[in-house]
């Protein structure tokens, strides 16, 4: 997935003094030197940041696997997986910890990408599937499946997937008025989010007491202890969607310039927007169907990635990595951070995410960028 996205087109501001000097001197030589040099410097910076993020992710994954002891067992199990001599499979690692961490990484990647796609195509840094009721729709559908249909497991996941798609389609159709404007999409999304959460509240009042907990967990998002088949499903979906993400990224370069310029560059703005949104919704829906709506991951990954790599556009690979890091770390805290209390990961991201979000709104507003 990263190859196309890391293609030489990415450029960024020069941060090191050396590259500033070199671009200045090269412009004296050949006109084509300056942009190429600027792009090379940008690519260097991108590689450094992405490398740091990968490192951070590996550390987080390692911590997550080995927290609570069993480092030796972890290494042994990994060794066995890689076919190294002396490796020994471990139940705890292989069936409990490893799938959980793998799911966290995959879900984080999916949410991070989805959020950034939404925010970029709607040109609104504060619009993302979890805020717009798409994740809420998944919760509502899951709750309905659990409480009304009485099913569990994969059927609930399928319902959640359908719920997310339905709400997304509803938002798109309802906000379409000769085209889709970012503001209208966001406001329609928020209205539907409200209606959806009212529906959820209603279902909760009608639920039997022992079902309430299951429904509540589906409203905040939780990794739990997934089966390898579920992990495989999410991984497979990401692989299938990867080329679509790359194409969307390319379209975004034109869409970012506004409808008129994009049209002038040969893009059909409405179709391209629909395509990008569809990819974003697919990512969010498939991730939500497996782990529920983990609050705020989709929301913050994009802005954090853009802060690390300013001036490079949507920074999709960075968002994916940031999303993964956030979910893995939040899951770590959710598991072990609150003493003996184990909470769903969505609560941790919610508790940390909301203040961050408000701070983001306040600082964005102050700079005049805002929504």
């Amino acid at each position: 997935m990263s190859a196309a996205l890391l293609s030489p087109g990415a450029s960024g501001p020069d941060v090191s003094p050396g590259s500033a000097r070199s671009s200045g001197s090269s412009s004296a030589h050949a006109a084509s030197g300056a942009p190429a040099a600027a792009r090379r410097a940008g690519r260097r910076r991108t590689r450094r940041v992405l490398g740091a993020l990968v490192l951070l992710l590996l550390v987080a994954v390692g911590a997550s696997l080995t927290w609570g002891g069993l480092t030796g067992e972890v290494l042994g199990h990994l060794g066995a997986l890689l076919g190294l001599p002396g490796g020994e499979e471990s139940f705890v690692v292989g069936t409990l910890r490893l799938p959980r961490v793998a799911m966290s990484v995959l879900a984080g990647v999916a949410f991070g990408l989805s959020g950034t796609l939404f925010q970029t195509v709607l040109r609104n840094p504060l619009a993302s599937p979890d805020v717009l009721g798409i994740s809420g729709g998944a919760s509502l559908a899951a709750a309905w499946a659990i409480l009304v249909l009485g099913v569990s497991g994969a059927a609930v996941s399928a319902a959640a997937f359908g719920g997310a798609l339905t709400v997304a389609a509803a938002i798109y159709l309802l906000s379409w008025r000769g085209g889709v404007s970012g503001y209208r999409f966001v406001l329609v999304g928020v209205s539907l989010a409200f209606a959806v959460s009212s529906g959820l509240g209603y279902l909760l009042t009608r639920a039997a007491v022992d079902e309430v907990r299951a429904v509540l967990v589906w409203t905040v998002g939780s990794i739990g202890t997934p089966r390898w088949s579920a992990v495989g499903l999410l991984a497979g979906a990401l692989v299938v969607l990867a080329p679509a993400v790359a194409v969307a990224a390319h379209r975004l370069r034109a869409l970012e310039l506004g409808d008129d310029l994009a049209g002038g560059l040969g893009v059909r703005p409405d179709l391209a927007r629909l395509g990008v949104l569809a990819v974003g919704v697919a990512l969010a829906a498939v991730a939500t169907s497996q782990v529920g709506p983990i609050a705020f991951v989709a929301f913050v990954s994009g802005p954090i990635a853009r802060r690390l790599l300013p001036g490079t556009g949507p920074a999709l690979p960075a968002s994916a990595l940031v999303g993964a890091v956030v979910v893995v770390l939040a899951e770590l805290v959710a598991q072990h951070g609150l003493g003996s209390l184990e909470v769903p990961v969505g609560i941790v991201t919610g508790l940390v995410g909301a203040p961050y979000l408000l701070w983001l709104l306040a600082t964005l507003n102050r700079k005049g960028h805002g929504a």
Partner: protein
Amino acid sequence: MSGRPTGERSGPDGRQPRGHDPHPRSHDLRTVGLDLAYDDRVVVHDLDLAIPPGLITAVVGPNGCGKSTLLRGLARLLRPHAGQVLLDGHPVHRLPSRQVAELIGILPQSPVAPDGITVADLVGRGRYPHQGWFRRWTSTDDQVVGDALAATGTADLAARRVDELSGGQRQRVWLAMALAQDPDVLLLDEPTTFLDVTHQIEVLDLLTDLNRQRGTTVVMVLHDLNLAARYADHLVVLADGRLVAAGDPADVLTAELVASAFGLTARVVGDPVTGTPMVVPVGRHHRTPSLVARDLG
């Protein structure tokens, strides 16, 4: 053949950068009975207009007469309500978008750059129509971008952020992006409106360079009648969405036309620098008795 409009563009590898091609671009862009509308409100009525290839055309007219709308119709951003926009005889809406983008480029009014984007990145985006489904960046792209930056004098700004630039610099960067797109026909919606007079002349001179050196057809909407008369080879006057006059500025720009299209009393004299028509407005407060007598008589 396949019915696609042809251009004299290909060098040995089929992708020769424009600047080295000495042949003028001769794509024919015209409208036939064109009606353009927003939500059933018809803004441009029954327009028959031929854009002369390889020349600079200026479109003028009072506020709200449909100039921007016309440009957007030509650039394929608006579907015709009635009538057609033809590129080399083919309706422009039936052609593949990417192909049209390689031939027609538009620079809208007050374009907005994404937050924090650098000059080099923004100009690079102009290469979009020449790239595939995924972003394949080639050395040709580098060269064209470099040429565009050099032509607009913005090469030393390549690493700067666009939102840090002054108005004049920013407009030159947008021009560089249009150059990087390398279209045969360049449409510009009020490229000089928010610039001070020095930068207005700078931009118009750049566009003239573009036209003379590369043979690009330039169609620009201008507010300033005098600059339009000076820089345009072909002047188009619109009023109320209809064509009032089209032709050489010296023939088109008369006091009678200014009065009927703009509702403005004016004298038209010769520009002392270029000899092109110069419109000198007469307002309420500056009438001398002789002028009043002349108008009444």
